[in-house]
């Protein structure tokens, strides 16, 4: 007769082994999922850091400002490192630039040098935070707009002799008036644009190309189409700005 304790022990061995097997079967998949989840969380943290530290000069959506270059563009993701003959790849290039800053301006027109951000070089960010920022910037890659094509695109022909006239026609023709009121005419789904020129040309351009960048209080995000960058050329947009300017000045 075998001791019951040996039987209980053997049963426990079986239970422990099945537990280990149960964990081991899923372990490889779990690790892949964990990797993705951790990357997702890194992008989330990077978004908060970018908004806090980088957006002031590079724009809230990396569109660039007169103070610093555009990051959210096809050129940046496809050609930037080749043009610089940097061999470490784009993520390493971004990390290097964020961590160490730029001792020399890439364009003399910028008012300041890119500062150093890593604590290793006297900046405020830890290296894990810099990794998060890199992951966030790299996350633009998929939808980055082709700004060069946009700039060189043939303008959509719009009737009118002056920019103001073409802008006024475009405001009707492109459908803006359905939602936006101007000079007392138009819809109320979006904000009144009679005095929008006071907010500046950059604001207008950003709002047309990236309607969710700034959502005026009291209005919903994601109502305005986000593809005007594809249908309007630079010249079209400048015409619209000229039209807004003329309306604003006539008030």
């Amino acid at each position, binding site marked *: 007769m075998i001791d019951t304790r*040996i039987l209980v022990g053997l049963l426990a061995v079986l239970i422990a082994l099945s*537990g280990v097997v149960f964990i081991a079967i899923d372990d490889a998949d779990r*690790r892949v999922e964990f*990797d*993705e989840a951790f990357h997702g969380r890194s992008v*989330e943290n990077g*978004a908060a850091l970018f908004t806090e530290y980088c957006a002031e000069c590079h724009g809230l959506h990396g569109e660039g400002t007169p103070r610093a270059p555009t990051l959210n563009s096809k050129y940046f993701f496809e050609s930037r490192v080749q043009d610089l003959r940097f061999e470490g790849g784009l993520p390493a290039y971004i990390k290097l630039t964020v961590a160490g800053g730029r001792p020399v301006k890439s364009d003399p027109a910028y008012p300041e040098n890119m500062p150093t951000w890593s604590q290793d070089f006297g900046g405020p960010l*830890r290296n894990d935070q810099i990794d998060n920022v890199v992951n966030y910037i790299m996350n633009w890659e998929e939808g980055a707009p082709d700004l060069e094509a946009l700039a060189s695109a043939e303008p959509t022909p719009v009737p009118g002799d002056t920019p103001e006239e073409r802008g006024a026609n475009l405001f009707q023709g492109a459908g803006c008036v359905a939602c936006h009121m101007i000079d007392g005419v138009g819809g109320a789904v979006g904000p009144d644009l009679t005095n929008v020129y006071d907010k500046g040309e950059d604001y207008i351009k950003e709002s047309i190309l990236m309607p969710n960048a700034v959502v005026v209080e009291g209005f919903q995000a994601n109502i305005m189409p986000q593809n005007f960058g594809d249908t309007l050329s630079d010249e079209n947009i400048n015409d619209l700005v000229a039209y807004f300017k003329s309306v604003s000045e006539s008030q």
Partner: protein
Amino acid sequence: MDIPGMGFFNSLSEKGIKQTIGDKIDETTRAVLAGISPKEARALLRGEPPTEKPNPRYRAQVKSFMLHIRPKFYQEGSTWFSHTFRLGLLSTFFFVVEVITGLILMVYYTPSPDVAYYDMINILSNVNMGKFMRDMHRLGAELMVIAVSLHMARVFFTGAYKHPRQFTWLTGVVLLLVTLFLSFSGYLLPWDQLAYWAVTIGTSMAEAAPLFGYQVNLILRGSQDIGAGGLLRFYLLHVFLLPLVAIVFISIHYYKVSREHSISLPAAIEENQAPPEKIAAAKRKVDILPDLITSEIMWYIIALAGMVIAVATFFSAPLETHADPLKTPLHTTAPWYFLWLQGMLKLGDKTLWGVVIPTIIFGLLFAIPYLDPGPSRLAKNRKFGVSLGIITAVMLVVLSYMGTGLWGVSAPPAVELVQEFIPEEGVGKVRMIPWDQMTIGAFTTENPTTYPSGELGEIMREMEEAVERESARPDNNFFNGRMTVTIEPWQTDLKKFTTTVNWEEIPEGSTSNELQDAEFVKTFYFHRDSNYELLE
């Protein structure tokens, strides 16, 4: 024919092949198993009486190093489950689990603030069964604290610390302290927010000590704040000094038990308060080989199986975001086994409640056997001692409750509201909403008709209730509150989630009851892949 140096072949010709091989097996087995023959080993496994005289099992205990540490037998009464609950055995077992899993984790860990957190991520995302090892290590640590504490309570309530076992008790209190510090020093190593702030609070308690507090804190942390030096010091404490002290004191503790006084018998037996046949049964000898060893191995495996099942089903070692010395989390709590200390700190002066009183408590713990001269171990003769023990246990529970964030300290209502739904660390209700159900738009608790369908809508309804609850609380300076959630598309697979709490309040220092508008905004970003449940 006798060939010198060829004993095997000589006996082959003398005794035949079967006998010779049999003898050789017997000889080898005895050499390996400290004198136990194959036949005897079989009898051991089957729980049968010894096959030779003198008893080869006793001889094995003299010859074998591992066995010589053990006594030859226990009295049956001291092996009754209801007397010891195997708590000392389990404490040792968990220590061994910690050593083994700890050694494996050490291979993948570097004690430096730059890489420690990434090493944790690597263990979780790249090392085969790395999460299993980490979970086992963490679970073993918590179970070890529980087992050691319960072991101590058992010894106290059965009066087993009394003469002649006073010194054994003393080494036991040292082991309790070592266990607590082992667990606490391991807390810092993942270098996440949880680790950093729990240890910052813990070491700042040392700072409150009179005269040398500043120096102790400095020695532990390696500088004013915990940094590279502090992490390395905690690491060395955790993997070297404290385990060394533990091994030395476990040895002393066990040597006292096995060689000097054995495990105590139940008090009623020792003091002849039980029926004679029960006393006779309790004093019967139970041999280590095979009875106790069989029983011990069974308990080890049961404990191991229990741990594996816990890890496979619900237990998961937490890992928060990277340590950030500049950002104090909203509700920082000590590890649960130090919550009573955190609770005491809320009572008043840091030096008195954080240092002086705990020192007195542990001093008294050490001194219990010397302060309690009563010879009887029976509970009915120790009414004062037993009541004191029960009061202490209840106090520990109450103080621990006071130590949690549930008692005393709380942030302004608006901050707590956001924390309730989207905590700074961990998952929370909002992060559990499937990414696709995070509908783009703005939704406010003022206007329930705007709620989207699905889980977000349900959470909005819960927010509505929470806001009403906070607005209704008389002790809150929070009136007519509302919560607004704005969700915007932000990037590929990334949404921006802004929560705004608006309310009216009586301005600070104002004497009139005039209300003023106030606002609290907090922004989060949610990525499609960030499976928070997985990170928990």
